């Protein structure tokens, strides 16, 4: 039996925070949000991974399974602080490929 390849989705994120935030802080907060809302089972189904992070622009690209997109999006929306300080992460765009995402976000 041929196993189906699970499609992925790339999300462009913008971190808004008054303090300096590195990629570890961002991913920790996203993972914690997913765990809090959906538990370990939900987190295991997301296959979440950081692809790129620009420290100066506070811009990140993460990847997840397409079946977990809404859960990941809800988790990201629920973040209200990073490292104990107020912060927000906005989803700038979602796409099936990195190339299309860059094109979407840049325009």
């Amino acid at each position, binding site marked *: 039996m041929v196993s189906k390849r699970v499609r992925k989705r790339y999300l462009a994120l913008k971190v808004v925070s008054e303090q300096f935030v590195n990629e570890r802080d961002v991913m920790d907060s996203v993972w914690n949000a997913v765990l809090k809302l959906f538990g370990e089972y939900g987190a295991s189904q997301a296959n979440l991974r950081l692809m790129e992070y620009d420290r100066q622009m506070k811009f990140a690209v993460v990847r997840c399974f397409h079946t977990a997109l*809404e859960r990941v999006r809800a988790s990201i*929306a629920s973040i*209200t602080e990073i490292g104990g300080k107020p912060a927000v992460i906005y989803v700038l765009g979602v796409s099936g490929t990195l190339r299309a995402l860059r094109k979407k976000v840049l325009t």
Partner: protein
Amino acid sequence: MRKFVDLHLRAPIKDLYKVERMVRKSSELGYRLVGILLPLNASRDQISQLQHICNDTKIDLVTRVDFSPKTPRELLNDLRRFRRKFEVISVTCTSKGVARQAAKDRRVDLLHFPATDLRKRFFDDAEAELASKALSSLEIEMAPLLLLTGFSRFRLLSRLRREVAIAERFKVPVTLSSGATNEYLIRGPHDYAALTTLFDMSMPSALRALSENPAALVERNRVKLSPGYVAPGIRVVGRKNGV
């Protein structure tokens, strides 16, 4: 293209800089119409200042007021005094009597229930049946979902799941709004739609609750509050000189 609406920005209207930041953030996130909460004694100057801010950011302003009456009689008095002064009227129902009166009164646009005191959430089958006949909408604020944690949050989610199912069964429109007190609590419409999956609201229903439902409510009220309006289907189209 959908026109996204946020009918509940709790901006501190005395701090116009903060209001401008919140309105600008809403515009960046894709909202085209925002409702700013005003006090009952809001002056024309304050409203025109807010209008000016919204015009600069190319956003349509909706004037909104929240009533928190203690008795049905108080609600009726407030409606009689203030209905024609504001475009959107929301009633925070803190007792069953008030909830029933608000649901059956056609002058009430939004039914709002406290997020933290779940004993005061009276949206049940009887309430929904009254609301469906009077065209009131159930308002769900998203800010408490962002601020509450643990036990409080999942109890609220459980209650919202039940209320959304009741609203769907009785065809009561649901309106999602931010309830944001600062720009950090405002999220994009698709992010709010994703959050509604936490209480089993479908994506199409969530997007409707962020666009068509509140927009239709505002449109309906603007027509009713327009100078030429007399009754449904009847408008003044012209006047004779001296009459």
